[in-house]
């Protein structure tokens, strides 16, 4: 049987071809169709995985031990599900600027390939290939569809991501050369790294860590993030913050699973993550642009997730995965809401935005839901993530496991006052010029529903993770 991933790739390539061939009015429909099919196929793949485990494909370079092998783990299944939901919603409602239909639709399909591939690849070479496809898709998305300063932002983004790719490639070469049977299979590497020479271990660790850290936008390698997120168009921000940073998060979890590689560095990495969280929180309170606020919130969340990963116990790692699930959906929703606010009020400055709730209830509901989820409010997915992350972090780090809460505290105070001032306050209200379109409202409700569903029914995901 042909691996499902290959079918998805074929479908999305076909979709890109069709988008280019047809007129631009059809572009969105084709991309949505491809996203729906991909979502269904991902569900099929997850169901297969739950029932019968992984079915690995053939090795296509047998003597190099490399192959088109695709499969899932509990962790990647969750991330796959998240990214498929986000991509579908992005395809339906992401284009709040109502421009560049063909480019937008085809790049979403291209990114679909990357996202589906990376979370189903079972060896690091495929992981690398899909990683770079994702980076290219996002680069183009910022460069072609972004706002005024998009060129600089996209180059900045590309430079950082190229550095990450180079580091990833370096680590792959090292791992391939020094492992006894020359395999890049992740499940094999997890136990095989113990036999590596000590200096190679350090080099691999450092290279992989730098690669994933850059992608996750951890301080001090975060400078690409605010510009890239802010200058990207809405669908670009949604995919970038929602899914692309999860590539690094997923990689980071794999890195920490490589046995014994990180053992000596856990507390340093935890410290770095905590600094990143507080740094992002302090940056948030200086921002005036709603989109930049959401960008730094995304950075903060990724810091929290790295913190959880570095606590390196099962509860915290589950928390990190749940955090990525939650953060992906919530941040995508927040960016979608901000994009809609921009198109409704033509304004993103929090000093001038007032009374959004009278202008559009659905936008306010969407933004509030995502903000509450980011803050870990009960009955949203963020709460489950927060429970697991901090319970696990305290288990790993003792009382120091609570340090990132300082960042969450600062962000929370600011977020609530933004909601109060911009969404609720009726003093000097802004007049809305339009209403959110039906497709945008679909996006709001679909993602908000996902946030609440994952917040109330966490056992669904936990059952998957346990596999």
């Amino acid at each position: 049987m042909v691996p499902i991933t290959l079918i998805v790739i074929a479908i999305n390539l076909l979709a890109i071809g069709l988008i280019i061939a047809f007129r631009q009015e059809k572009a969105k429909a084709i991309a949505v169709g491809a996203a729906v099919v991909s979502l269904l196929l991902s569900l099929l793949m997850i169901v297969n995985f739950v029932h019968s485990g992984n079915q690995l494909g053939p090795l296509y370079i047998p003597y190099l031990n490399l192959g088109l092998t695709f499969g899932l783990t509990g962790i990647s299944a969750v991330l796959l599900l998240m990214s498929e939901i986000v991509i579908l919603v992005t395809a339906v409602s992401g284009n709040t600027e109502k421009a560049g239909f063909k480019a937008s639709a085809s790049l979403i399909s291209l990114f679909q390939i990357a996202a589906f591939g990376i979370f189903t690849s079972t060896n690091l070479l495929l992981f690398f290939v899909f990683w770079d496809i994702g980076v290219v898709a996002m680069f183009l998305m910022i460069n072609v569809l972004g706002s005024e300063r998009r060129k600089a932002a996209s180059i900045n983004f590309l430079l950082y991501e190229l550095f990450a790719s180079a580091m990833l490639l370096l680590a792959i070469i090292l791992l391939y050369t020094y492992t006894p049977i020359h395999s890049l299979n992740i499940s094999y590497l997890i136990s095989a790294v113990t036999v590596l020479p000590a200096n190679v271990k350090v080099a691999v660790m450092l290279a992989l860590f730098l690669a994933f850290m850059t992608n996750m936008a951890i301080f001090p390698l975060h400078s690409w993030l605010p510009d890239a997120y802010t200058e990207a168009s809405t669908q670009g921000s949604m995919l970038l913050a929602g899914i692309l940073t999860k590539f690094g998060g997923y990689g980071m979890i794999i890195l920490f699973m490589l046995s014994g590689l990180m053992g000596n560095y856990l507390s340093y990495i935890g410290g770095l993550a905590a600094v990143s969280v507080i740094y992002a929180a302090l940056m948030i309170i200086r921002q005036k642009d709603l989109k930049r606020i959401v960008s730094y919130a995304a950075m903060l969340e990724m810091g929290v997730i790295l913190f959880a990963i570095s606590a390196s116990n099962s509860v915290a790692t589950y928390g990190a995965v749940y955090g990525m699930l939650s953060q992906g959906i919530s941040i995508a929703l927040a960016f979608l809401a901000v994009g809609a606010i921009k198109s409704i009020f033509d304004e993103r400055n929090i000093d001038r935005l007032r009374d959004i709730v009278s202008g559009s209830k659905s936008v306010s509901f969407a933004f509030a839901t995502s903000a509450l989820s980011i803050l870990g409010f009960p009955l949203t997915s963020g709460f489950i993530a927060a429970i697991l992350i901090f319970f696990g972090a305290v288990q790993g780090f003792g009382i120091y496991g609570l340090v990132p809460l300082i960042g969450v505290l600062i962000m929370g105070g600011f977020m609530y006052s933004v909601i109060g001032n911009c969404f609720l306050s009726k003093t000097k209200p802004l007049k809305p010029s339009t209403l959110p379109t039906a497709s945008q409202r679909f996006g709001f409700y679909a993602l908000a529903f996902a946030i609440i569903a994952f917040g109330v029914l966490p056992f669904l995901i936990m059952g998957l993770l346990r596999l």
Partner: protein
Amino acid sequence: MFALILVLPFILSGILAMVLRNDKLSGPIALGAGIVTIARIAILYFNNPGVQSVNWFSVGPYTFTLIASAGPMHLIFLALISFMSTMVILYSLGFMNVRSERNLYYMMISFFAAGMMLFAVGADLITLFIGWELIGLASYLLIGFWRYKESAIKAANKAVIVLFIGDVLVFAGIALLWSQLHSVSLSYIEANATGAIASISALLIVAGALTKSAQFPFHEWLTAAMEGPTPVSALLHSSTMVKAGAFLIAIMLPFILGAGLGPILIGAGIASVVIASINALSTTHIKKVLAYSTIEDMGLIFIALGFNAIWAAVLLFVFQTFYKGLIFMNAGILTKSNKDETDIRKISTSKRLGIILPLIIGVAAVAGVFPLGGFFGKIAVVSAVQNYAVYAVLLVVEIISSMYIFRWLFVPLANSKSKKKSKSDYAVPNSMLAAVYILSFMVLATSIAWIYLSGILHGPMITYQAAAIFTVLLAIGLVLSYLLYYRKLASNAKLRNSLSRISDIGIAINAVYKLVILIVNGIGAAVDLFDYNLYSGLKGTGYGLGRISVLLEKTENGSINYYLGAFVVAAIIAIIVFSVI
């Protein structure tokens, strides 16, 4: 399961209020939900489901369980919440008559009540925390309900930020406890939590409870929260919100006292009581006086808890619900009949018996005139004090609190002596009066019931001596207040100035809040600058590399002579270097 059934009516009424287009129905629907809930809780008394738990999800070897309990404390709290919510909704039917956005209002009130009841049934920290956060959010929206007022939004932001600090502290405490015990069930914690980690987490939880109960140093949000509609204040101050903190401490009391935090409870309580009573004496905002009175009552409850006098705490807890609800509703009637005036110096009251009698009952109950609720509650607390310094402070505070609450009564009364107004000026919607009458009745009924019940239930015994001391102090405050504010002896400006000068502690506390925000902002500015420099530095490095490349480019100019010359020079250098080595 019983917990879900319990909160269902209010959730349904909230959803209906959200969905309905007609704004006339949402109020009665919410009222109906309240009545159903009261009935449901009455059934719980006779058919007690005990403790029920449901497994929420499990991670590795650990299972997260939601536990609901219908123990005595939970039931008392549930009864108070459902009763007061219903009364407040009844009162709101009249109060919200002239305003738009009624559906939104009843939706929030319904969700608030539902969250509060979820909190009240919680017997594990996660369930409690879920309810805790829900009421925080709902109260945020309710405090900022008059969205056209900038002050309302500011007050809501202030409240929510302080409450969020509390949320984070409680969450941190829960995380610490879980990491030690791998359980958040209250009964398990009570039996097994020991050691330093447990003490720290107890401290965090107590700090969180202080924010919710508006105790020193987190108390200023409550006075700002007076920007909310009056029924909301009545609800927040009587049975819900501020009680949540005390309730959390009360059901975890053995654990918290076991961690040695009694003195912290007492200290926070004493500080709150002193600050609140002094501030209440100078405030002229009709609802802020009552807000300070709430802070004082909650301070007394915390003192009782600190001395492990759970009975005294519960007693005041129950009585305070009724009398604080009543007096806030009276305040609403006063402001409503004075064209939304909130300065007590400008408010006058109708002399109609139907209006003035509940007012007097409310004030007397707050002050603690025998035989009304405050009398038993406050004496029980004061009698539970086992420390002479604390005892002495409470006695002094008692005079002040009697003074300010009677001032609250006498100033409007004195105003209505001079002003001539027709009866129609004081017209009040019937539903507001109905709620006030029911509550007046409840204040009287609970007080009388207690006189009979105290023997049967083996509650805290009140000695004649304590009662006599209390009543004398109360009378001193009453007489002082009468002379100063009704006979207008305080009208000379000098006295008033000196009174307000010593009592403006609120300003200082707010200044501290502002300072904290300023400091955080300052650090943020520094980080911002650093980030900018980091970014510029990276850009500068890129630019520098580019310049180097331009320089190197000049060496590649295509001239054979130049290349040959360079080759010869390099060869000579190489020979010299190698020969030296």
